[in-house]
């Protein structure tokens, strides 16, 4: 018990003792210390990333000073970011969503169909977003109102949706040759000052989502629901609706990610999105969002995605054979988890 809480039997509320009139004060009022304490998870992830890059650069300085290496990472990284960020919300809410790769494939398929039919790509993007929203709602409703385990139900939906794509397309891809001349391509997939323009959109998305997480009612309720769903319910929060919303958010993110991946390649494959499942999940946890729900970090998740996408490029560029990639993937994930475990306390 703190000093101020000690007995004052004459006046339990401390009204006239002057105690209550004092303003709040942090143990350390220095802004930098407060900043570090509030952002310890994402700063830890950043430290992991910096150390990893330092090792890579020391191993092969010439490759790591060429722009091409970064340019290729910056082209594919945004696709991952658009799903990592909503997944931070899902995990914070105490759920998991393994159906996003199929949602990516499904939404980008709709995009490809619309563009192939000769409509403007903007219309295709709108159609993809609607598809992502509906699929997110479907998956969320199944988990929440069907009362299913999100781990198993979303895994099932991933197979089911991917299966539908395979049945209808019979493995055939769709080439979108007229995409390169469109306005949509120029805005979403070209280069600006030699930098792939996707990364600007992805960064804007991360900033928006970080604000949503920390400065919006949605983020506040997601955290409370993940922390203590019973209390949230007792305080009048529609817990089920909040849960459905995080799945819808993931559906929208997956639709954007899928569309961007098609625009990079000018081609839609029936497997679009499949390769993102494990790297994206790893990014969320490498980023410092714990598995138990209630807390998390959007910026940390984004840094986690950067880390994970540099592992593959970095290992090869550092002069090691491709066989080392998986080993280093695992090493970074385990080291990050150990670091976060030490860095974070779990309150009950």
């Amino acid at each position, binding site marked *: 018990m703190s000093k101020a809480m000690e007995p004052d039997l004459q006046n339990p*509320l401390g009204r006239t003792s002057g105690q209550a009139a004092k303003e709040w004060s942090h143990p350390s009022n220095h802004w930098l210390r407060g900043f570090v304490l509030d952002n310890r998870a994402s700063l830890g992830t950043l430290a992991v990333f910096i150390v990893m890059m330092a090792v890579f650069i020391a191993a092969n300085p010439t490759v790591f000073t060429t722009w091409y290496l970064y340019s290729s990472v910056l082209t594919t990284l945004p696709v991952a970011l658009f799903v990592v960020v909503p997944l931070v919300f899902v995990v914070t809410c105490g759920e998991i969503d393994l159906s996003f790769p199929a949602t990516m494939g499904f939404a980008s398929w709709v995009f490809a169909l619309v563009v192939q039919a000769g409509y403007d790509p903007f219309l295709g993007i709108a159609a993809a977003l609607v598809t992502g929203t509906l699929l997110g709602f479907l998956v969320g409703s199944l988990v929440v109102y069907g009362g299913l385990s999100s781990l198993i139900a979303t895994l099932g939906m991933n197979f089911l949706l991917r299966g539908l794509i395979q049945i209808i397309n019979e493995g055939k891809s769709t080439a979108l040759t007229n995409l390169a001349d469109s306005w949509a391509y120029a805005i979403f997939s070209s280069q600006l000052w030699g930098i792939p323009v996707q990364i600007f959109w992805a960064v804007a998305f991360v900033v928006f989502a970080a*604000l949503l997480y920390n400065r919006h009612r949605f983020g506040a309720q997601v955290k409370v629901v993940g922390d203590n769903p019973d209390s949230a319910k007792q305080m*009048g929060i529609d817990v089920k609706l909040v849960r459905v919303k995080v799945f819808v958010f993931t559906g929208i993110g997956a639709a954007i990610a899928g569309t961007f991946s098609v625009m990079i390649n000018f081609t839609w494959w029936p497997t679009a999105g499949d390769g993102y499942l494990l790297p994206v999940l790893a990014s969320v946890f490498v980023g410092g969002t714990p598995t138990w729900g209630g807390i998390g970090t959007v910026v940390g998740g984004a840094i986690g995605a950067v880390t994970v996408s540099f592992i593959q490029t970095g290992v090869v560029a550092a002069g090691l054979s491709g066989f080392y990639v998986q080993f280093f993937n695992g090493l970074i994930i385990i080291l990050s988890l150990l670091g976060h475990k030490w860095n974070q306390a779990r309150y009950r």
Partner: protein
Amino acid sequence: MGERIIELRDIKKSYGQVYALGGVNLSVDRGEVVGLIGDNGAGKSTLIKILSGVVKPTSGDILVRGKPVSGWSAARSRDAGIETVFQDRALAVQQTIVRNIFMGRELTGFLGWLKVNKEIAEASRLMREIGFTSKVFTPHSIVGQLSGGERQGVAIARAIYKQAELIILDEPTTALSLTETAKVFHFVRQVRASGRSILFIGHNIHHVFDIADRFVVLDRGKVALTADRSEVKSAEELINFMEDVAHPGGLPGLHEGAEQGA
């Protein structure tokens, strides 16, 4: 007595074949402290959950300020000016004090964006008002770092924020130190003095006897006794009554032992 804040009429609640409440009538008037007592399994928790909207009754009517309500829910209950401090405090322990105080009632502006500065200012004011201040914690402190009494303070601060007309305190003195219990009692008197009402649920009949204007004894899902303070001479009388209700035949030697348990 003043206006009737809430009235329950013939409330029944069954879980499958088991009746938790078998037709309960209960009302709380403005400015009164009602003490609700009853043994384990008497139906106290179910009654609180119905009042706070967490659980819907199987049958019966709920009237708020004389008007019957429909679509009763936790959000409706709070909107009607009923706040509950649950026994387990209903806090999200990994969140800050601010987030807990405004849980389900976030202060938002344009398109649902939080008014962060206003929330902090209001949280500071509330915590000062009820005397739960300390140099060690701030509105940004994580609730998991606080002691039991301090957590109770956060739960109470949340309950008084919207000038609730009825505050339900479910076992508010359980697991609190003497000083912290004194604070809770002081708070109850303060609320009554401001013309608002309290429903005080307690295991400790001496505590309830000290604070309440009216007693309601619940037994096996039914109201066994409603008595004004003037009708009851001592806490022992209440305890004896409860034992008589629980064991109508009377168990020899039980009355002597009861005082230690209370």
